[in-house]
């Protein structure tokens, strides 16, 4: 097979594929696959942007080429950049933007106090470093851990996962929900003096009921069993 059917050029954020303009597409596709198979060790599991050069491709052809690359190496193709805009700056923006978006989507940590009216929704488990004030809300498809005082509404396992838990250093929530179970705090006739001592608590489902218990070896053992 003609090895000059495809040549690779790289910049810090992506790759430029110089394609042979006349070779039949199927042969070209095979050449690309082989090229990446040979250099899979070099690229490892890099995340990068791609530009195709030297040949006008249809959408379908583009995706077939990408498939050939992905199948023959561990490269994660973040985006395909059109040749005419294919400057390095554009690559950089496209790659960093996508990576940033992935990071925020994971949303594993939230720094600061969640105040009344603020809603934090995450697809994954979340750790809050700060307080959750009355009127604030956290909705997580995973677990919720609050390194602070929880006085708002929290909803763990919002996707329906009953094994999720919620924990806080001070647990005084308005409402707690885990999957399809909900509980609300007792209404107290006493004046709210705002004094909430630190007593780490965990909320989880056991025997079809919400359990709100202090974090001790016993309760953790019960939750894990």
């Amino acid at each position, binding site marked *: 097979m003609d090895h000059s059917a495809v040549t690779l050029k790289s910049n810090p954020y992506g790759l430029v594929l110089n394609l042979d303009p006349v070779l039949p597409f199927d042969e070209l596709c095979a050449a690309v696959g082989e090229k990446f198979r040979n250099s899979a060790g070099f690229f490892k599991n890099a995340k990068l942007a791609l530009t195709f050069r030297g040949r006008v491709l249809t959408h379908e052809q583009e995706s077939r080429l990408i498939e050939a690359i992905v199948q023959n190496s561990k490269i994660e193709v973040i985006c395909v950049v059109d040749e005419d805009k294919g400057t390095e700056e554009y690559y950089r923006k496209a790659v960093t933007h996508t990576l940033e978006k992935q990071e925020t989507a994971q949303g594993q940590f939230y720094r600061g106090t969640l105040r009344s009216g603020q809603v934090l929704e995450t697809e994954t488990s979340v750790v809050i470093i700060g307080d959750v004030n009355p009127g604030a809300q956290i909705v997580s498809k995973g677990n919720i851990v609050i390194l602070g005082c929880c006085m708002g509404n929290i909803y763990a396992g919002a996707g329906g996962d009953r094994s999720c838990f919620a924990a806080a250093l001070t647990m005084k929530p308005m409402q707690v929900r885990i999957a399809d179970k909900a509980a609300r705090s007792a209404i107290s006739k006493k004046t709210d*003096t705002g004094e909430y001592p630190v007593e780490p608590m965990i909320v989880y489902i056991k025997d079809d009921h919400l359990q709100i218990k202090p974090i001790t070896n016993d309760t953790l053992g019960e939750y894990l069993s």
Partner: protein
Amino acid sequence: MSEVIVVTSGKGGVGKTTSTANIGAGLARMNKKVVLIDTDIGLRNLDVVMGLENRIIYNLVDVVEGNCRVKQALIRDKHYPGLYLLPSAQTRDKSAVSPEQMIKLVDSLTQIFDYVVLDCPAGIEQGFRNATAAAQRAIVVTTPEVSAIRDADRIIGLLQAGGIKKIDLIVNRVRVDMVKRGEMMSVEDVLDILAVNLIGAIPDEESVVIAANHGESVVGSDTLSGQAYMNIARRITGETVPLIDLESGATLLHRVVSLFRRK
């Protein structure tokens, strides 16, 4: 360098207007040039509290709509030559002014004054957006009541989202006897929840209401609340002033004076 400060609370009736008037008087006592702007269009109060109601000819909306020059609408205070009021309109509503117009107006006032203090209306609608648009710093007023604290918390969140970094808190109407009996939140507990810088706590005193009803400020009187407001004004200018112990009275001198009064 002039500063633009908005006094806000979310909830109504916690003492925004009274606090604005007294902070203004306190700053003016320190020989600062201060303008107070009443942004509560349709429900103006600041002029009444300052006793300047009968001197209003032009107002905020007139200035914004170009019916008069800014200086024509400014009213000088009765006591302090450095203190001015830009009153609000009573016959219009909040939509008469836009945030952009407020920014332009405040910009022109910062040329003349050391401090521009905006008295914000209750609520989080158009009036709140107008008042906060031009501000660099905010003073949030709350009382040690659960409902006021909830609203203050929401307001602080909105201010932070609006890009105002410097946010201070006044805890108003503190009743030491109730705190002692465990029937009211203490200033410390309020701070625990709201987690912002405390710039002063004002005791619940009749003198504040009486002064406001007379169109005077408590600043400058020998009351505890007057002293507390004066200290807030000093802290605004960057001085470090220790907090007054509301329980035992202000200073040794204060205690001696009250000792003689009792006899």
